[in-house]
């Protein structure tokens, strides 16, 4: 059924786009429609080498300008991944989860009055200065079903929210966000291509894993925060406070006695409340651009494999921070170097989670991009290395702009490192990709 819906949606996309080109009535003239279609192919290099993605995607977004002060926006995305029909490598639950998807990416009413702007509806709210990282990009949950490989605008799961900004003075903005939409990160199912490593519990007792199925909407559990942004003499600084439930579930344990049998261990995924205090900074010191971000999460919990721990979870307030510089070499090669750290406040003994390699987990990212033939051929490279255990991700891509509307991309994603590290857990998921995108 979802497949049919996806096909119908893609058909609707093409029909709507075609309609735009013909003569439109007066009331439709404030409507702007655009979209894109893409075919994404990925081939897994490691044994068993095989096609791992054969996805057809469509996006359509429209904006209707009611007046200078009021606009309406809507965007939808749909996909069908033929790899689930072409191969039988993935279990049924993964196929059900990833084969087709139709989602509302944006449904937004924007109202503007003098220095106040209000946006109400389904949206992405993006905070932070840095590229390719989520340190202060905390408002929207993320879709990790394809790890962190898609564009970040695709990774973010839009939420229903009220977002208001008020311009206090020249260069001084205060922004408030409130949402009853308490969606959590979407994680890959067991058996998926980018399934995360499981926590290596060693229970002698039988264990039961409860589903993570809390309601997506709850006023009682609503989330929100504020951001104060100041731009002075080129220094772009913002301060952040956000109150939310942890978007990644934490597996709390409890023992349930079932006489005459042994006790059963119940693994209960919960989302503890987090208070996040953060700050961002951006400054151009021509020819270098400097960025920095920090977020301190109060109330962060991690699973522990310590058998003596009563609930299998320990609290470790966590500081994530990064500093990065951008520089263009030879007026041609744009590079960005970023150093980031995750610091857990307390012992990390028995904490096993990808991305936590010690009390201080350090990673360095280098991004380089350039263009040839008047920027019609654009190679780019992203290299991220976990310094603690030398796991790394190397993603290379070449985009060829066939025309103003069509882009062909060839790329590779390589992962290496010990298991139980963020990138090492996917060291058998190296892949090459080929993507065709048509924009209209």
């Amino acid at each position, binding site marked *: 059924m979802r497949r049919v819906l996806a096909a119908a949606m893609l058909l609707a996309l093409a029909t709507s786009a075609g309609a735009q080109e013909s003569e439109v009535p007066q009331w439709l003239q404030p409507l702007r429609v*655009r979209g894109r279609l893409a075919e994404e192919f990925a081939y897994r290099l490691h044994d068993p080498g095989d096609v791992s993605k054969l996805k057809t995607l469509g996006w359509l977004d429209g*904006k209707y300008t009611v007046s200078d002060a009021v*606009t309406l926006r809507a965007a939808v995305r749909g996909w069908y991944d033929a790899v689930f029909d072409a191969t039988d490598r993935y279990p049924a639950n993964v196929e059900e989860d990833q084969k087709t998807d139709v989602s509302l990416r944006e449904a937004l009413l*924007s109202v*503007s009055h003098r*220095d106040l*702007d209000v*946006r109400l509806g389904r949206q*992405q709210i*993006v*905070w*932070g*200065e840095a*590229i390719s990282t989520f340190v202060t*990009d905390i408002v929207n949950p993320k879709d990790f079903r394809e790890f962190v490989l898609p*564009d*970040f*605008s695709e990774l*973010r799961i839009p939420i229903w929210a009220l977002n208001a*900004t008020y*311009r206090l003075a*020249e260069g001084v*903005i205060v*922004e408030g966000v409130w949402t009853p939409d308490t969606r959590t990160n979407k994680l890959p199912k067991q058996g998926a291509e980018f399934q995360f490593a499981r926590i290596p519990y060693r229970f002698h007792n039988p264990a039961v894993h409860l589903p993570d199925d809390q309601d997506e909407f709850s006023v009682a559990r609503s989330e929100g925060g504020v951001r104060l*942004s100041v*731009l002075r003499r*080129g220094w*772009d600084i913002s301060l952040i406070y956000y109150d939310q439930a942890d978007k990644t579930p934490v597996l709390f344990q409890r023992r349930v006695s079932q006489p005459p049998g042994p006790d059963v261990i119940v693994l209960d995924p919960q989302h503890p409340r987090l208070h996040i205090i953060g700050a961002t900074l*951006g*400054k*151009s*010191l*021509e*020819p*270098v*651009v400097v*960025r920095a971000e920090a977020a301190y999460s109060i109330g962060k919990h991690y699973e522990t494999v310590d058998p003596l721990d009563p609930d299998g979870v320990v609290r470790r307030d966590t500081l994530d921070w990064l500093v990065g510089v*951008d520089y*263009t070499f*030879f*007026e*041609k090669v*744009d590079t960005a*170097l970023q*150093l980031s750290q995750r610091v857990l406040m307390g012992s990390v003994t028995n904490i096993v989670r990808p991305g936590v390699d010690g009390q201080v987990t*350090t990673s*360095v990212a280098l991004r380089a991009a350039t*263009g040839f*033939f*008047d*920027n*019609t051929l654009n190679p780019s490279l992203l290299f991220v290395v976990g*310094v603690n255990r030398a796991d790394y991700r190397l993603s290379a891509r070449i985009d060829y*702009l066939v*025309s*103003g*509307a069509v*882009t062909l991309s060839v790329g590779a994603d390589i992962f290496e490192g010990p298991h139980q590290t963020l990138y090492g857990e996917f060291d058998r998921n190296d892949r090459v990709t080929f993507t065709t995108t048509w*924009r*209209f």
Partner: protein
Amino acid sequence: MSNYMGGPETAPRPLDEGGNALGLRPRVTVAGLLLGSGPRFARDAAGPVLVFYAGLKLFGLTTGIIAATAFGVLTFGWERRRARAGLGAAIGLTIALTQAATGLATGSAVAYFAPGIVVNAIYGLVFIGSVVIGRPLAGVFASETYPFAPAVKASATFRRVFSRVSLAWGAYLLARSALRLLALTWRDVDVIVAVNIATGVPFTAALTAWSIWYGVRGFRRSEEWGWALKGVVLMTLLLGAVSPARAQQAVDIVADADRYRRPGDSFVWNIRITSEEAKKTPSVDDFQVFAKTGGRVLVKFVAPPRSVGRSLLALGRDLWIYLPDAGKPVRIPLSQRLVGQVANGDIARADYAGDYEATLVGDDAVDGLACHVLDLKAKTRDVTYSAIKYWVSKDGRRPVQAEFYAGTGTLLKTGRFDKFKDVGGHPLATRLTLTDAIRTDRRSVLDYGEISVRALPDKYFDKNYMKTLD
């Protein structure tokens, strides 16, 4: 160039604001240059290693690493505060940070030195590579040490002399890396440090001295610039300082010329950029530019479809790009390329009078049109070009043509302003053609189309509003 301050036709003679040929204010001597830059070279070459070694021996590995890293950060900060590019210190800092991360992660003093060797070798290869691509790295360092005029940096002598110096440095750095790698196999910190110092400071000092001596000699012996070095004192005496009245005249000329590139205090302007290259189909990009007083400019990408949704915001010299894929505005430098030969600053900034110090250096005729010739030097580092040579017509003070230079002195591109039209009683240059300095078949034509002069809300020029305007 018939009447360019009376200089001979055979040799170009760009003059700086003090009237000195070559832009040389101090007298050029090897000793003077060595005393000026030698200590800085020695500090960058040996400082971090000695500080690390002292910290290691006195307090332990972590202290050594922290001290060496702090030394690198302080040195970089010192250079920046003196408005130098601090390239040597920046490279030193990069090495120090990489070493610190490795040393702290591995807990090994031996491993601490490994990244330095790799970076040293890369550094050597970059020196050699810079010669291959025709932009010798030694020239960049030389420009840090000495204020060369843009035209000097663009000259054949400059490239020749500093290509040879770059090759010498490249060979030295590769050889040094090999020796340091050999020392690393001993796994003895004392040996590693000794080899590091022995192959570092003495050779660096000697090679620095040779580089400066060879550089000065190369220019003195060159037909292109020899005359200027010999005559520098005489030229200074003859021309003297620029008088205040003449300086004000230069500022007025540039400000008047700027008006031909700005139709009002608040306006929307459609711009089409056609990028051309020999044997290729031209590509066309359309933009809508919203501009307001105070250097506020928002550029919306209108076509082709692959660019639609992007926008660029300039607030003075601060610049952001909004990329739909990232979903947020991202800070970028003004000098980054927008499309074809066009830098972001070419359409986001039209305030030469505000951004550059202008000096009236002579007269010239361009296609029979009598022009003032001005040297514009960037007031700060935060602008698109380090220097511009600017031709402005004497009649009406219209912009006519320009040469745009990078900080290294390399001529990046030339520009030509034409198609002047009267828009609402305001004469405007509606075409700017930018041509690559090396590949002259590569050019971008900026055609300024429909203009709407109207009051724009201040919020249009807020980075948080970029997504709303998409």
